[in-house]
């Protein structure tokens, strides 16, 4: 029994830790999917906006004395507002064009944001402490010690992800949103302001990324490259899940986090590539993605 337990232990440990990474994948791919669903734009700047969320949290703390809990609300608002400005002044002008231009524009924005932060703050990263409330000894799960803050990440990400899913799939506002995706002209004719809705959606998607950024700040170092590391993996997650489905992108995010965790026990060298390998396999078997519609 104890021998079996010893074999099983790393599996459980890495699975649990993978869930934390999965939480970030899920929030980020959810934001991408929401933006893509509504605007038909792949937001390449998503990683940069995630990074910006962490930086704004740092600025709030060091320049305005606003701590973690304030930042958790304010940083997404501020970055989301920036998203609104970006959508109004730039992205809105591209809706009639090929979708690829949206990708190129946001790619350019990502470069600008990253480069600017690098100039302003250097690249070695800035410290951001775990909030006071979580500075308690790690929780003993029996098979490992889990820092309380990581628990919080998993829980809050679940709440946010399924809250968003619920808002889109089950509420009246969500139904307008879904209708506007299918038939924008018709919805507009019913007197609903579709352009405003698109702006709000982009702002909300960006705010989600920034929210994830604030969550990540105490765990990873706050540095200009933190988003670029994530975004390509999240792209693969989105391809695997299929962008058509909100729920799909959430579930795929968590699952891939856990799979990545397992890889770290058995073949750590491959843990960076496993997501891409899975993507290739999914493409061969089911080109539309696990949850996608043709």
């Amino acid at each position, binding site marked *: 029994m104890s021998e079996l337990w010893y074999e099983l*232990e*790393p599996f459980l*440990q*890495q699975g649990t*830790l*993978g869930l*934390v*990474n999965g939480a970030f994948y899920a929030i980020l791919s959810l934001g991408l999917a929401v933006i893509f669903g509504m605007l038909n734009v792949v937001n390449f700047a998503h990683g940069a906006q995630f990074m910006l969320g962490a930086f704004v949290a740092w600025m709030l703390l060091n320049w305005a004395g606003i701590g973690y809990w304030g930042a958790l609300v304010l940083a997404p608002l501020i970055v989301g507002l920036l998203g609104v400005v970006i959508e109004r002044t730039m992205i809105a002008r591209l809706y009639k064009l090929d979708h690829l231009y949206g990708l190129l524009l946001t790619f350019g924005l990502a470069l600008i944001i990253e*480069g600017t932060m*690098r*100039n302003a*703050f*250097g*690249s*070695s*990263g*800035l*410290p951001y*402490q*775990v909030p006071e409330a979580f500075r308690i*000894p*790690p929780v003993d799960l029996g098979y*490992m*010690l889990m*820092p309380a*803050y*990581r628990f919080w990440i998993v829980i809050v990400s679940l709440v946010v992800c399924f809250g968003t899913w619920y808002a889109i799939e089950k509420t009246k506002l969500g139904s307008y949103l879904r209708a506007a995706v299918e038939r924008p002209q018709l919805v507009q004719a019913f007197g609903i302001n579709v352009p405003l809705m698109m702006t709000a959606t982009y702002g909300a998607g960006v705010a989600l990324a920034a929210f994830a950024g604030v969550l990540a700040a*105490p*765990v*990873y*170092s706050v*540095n200009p*490259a*933190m988003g670029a*590391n*994530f975004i390509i993996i999240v792209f693969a997650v989105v391809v695997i899940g299929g962008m058509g489905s909100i729920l799909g992108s959430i579930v795929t995010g968590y699952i891939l986090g856990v799979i990545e*965790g397992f890889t*770290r*026990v058995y073949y*750590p*060298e491959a*843990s*960076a*590539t496993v997501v891409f390998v899975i993507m290739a396999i999914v493409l061969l078997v089911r080109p539309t993605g696990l949850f996608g519609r043709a």
Partner: protein
Amino acid sequence: MSITRRTLLTGTAAAGALPLVTPLRHARAQAANTIRIGVLNDQSGLYRDLSGPGSTQAVRLAVQESGITTRGVNVEVAEADHQNKPDVGSTIVRQWLDRDGFDVIVDVPTSSVALAVNTLCRERNKVLLVSGAATSDLTGSACSPNTIHWTYDTWMLARGTGGATVAAGGRTWFFITADYAFGHALERDVSNFVRAAGGEVLGGVRTPFPGTTDFSSFLVQAQRSRAQVIGLANAGGDTINSIKQAAEFGITRRGQKLAGLLVFISDVHALGLQTAQGLVLTATFYWDLNDNTREFTRRLGRMPNDVRPSMVHAGCYSAVLHYLKAVEAMGVQAAKASGAAVVERMKAMPTDDICFGKGTIRQDGRKIHPAYLFEVKSPQESRGPWDYYKLLQTIPADQAFRPLNEGGCPLVRT
């Protein structure tokens, strides 16, 4: 003095603005009385704070203090960003040496770039003064009559941190190693010292490089090994993340010690003392070490991003100061004619400056000075901004670096 400085800056601006359309003849027509220094380092990436524009500032200070410009020699300082990429670095250096007539390249953090520039400088008989790069190959298999490796190297880091930690009671080790050549080399070197000092390596894990932000999985494996010391054979952001997450998982509180094998003061600053306290590391310079180093910090003035000088900055200053002494001793004409001759002269002269004290340069191009084992202070111990280290041990100059006959440098004749 201010006039000297201004002319210097104008000269620099002109050098930087040299357009690509400059005819080749232009470079040939350069005044024979000008020494051109190219500071090549990371101006935008991970090593910006520990080298970057601060190194250029240190080089300018060295030029100014040498007084060489008041004696009729022009010195121009240019800087460029190699982005930590060997191909970008070698492109810049080709242009500097082949087209713009530069005489010496300084700093060059990132071992891969330094090795590429090492070859170019040797082929063209120019001078390379390495401060930022770590690889001890520069004075080993890749040693060159045109290169001096000034500040530190991987052997010294491994000796300092590996050897001293075992002596202090950390007998069993587990490595978290960045999965690329540099990480592997560091792990190998430290393992040798650990075993030689009677310690034991229990295991290790290779982390994908780059792109690993979450080290928790690897830290949990390290914890499981029950080793007394977790050696971090990585650099920059990887080191920062692993230390930060180790604190989060309470690894240090449960008695395991972290040994950072390549940690700079800018990294400690990024981590904050709350997280970094107790970390053991090796360096050859610390701004608050003694009156001289504090004087250097004062003279250097305000630095980009308000950092304090790192050992890399100090190395750039010290190397250029010594280089200019050699140039004056042999005359500008002779110095420009042969880089190897300048390096030969530099090796023949003892070094002395406020950063590293008195020292020498060995035949294989290794600059010799003491190294220091530091421990990062706790927030309670720190008395002010950037008061980060307490000295644990001084490693005397004759023990700090790899013995001359063990490097395999072809220049060394026994």
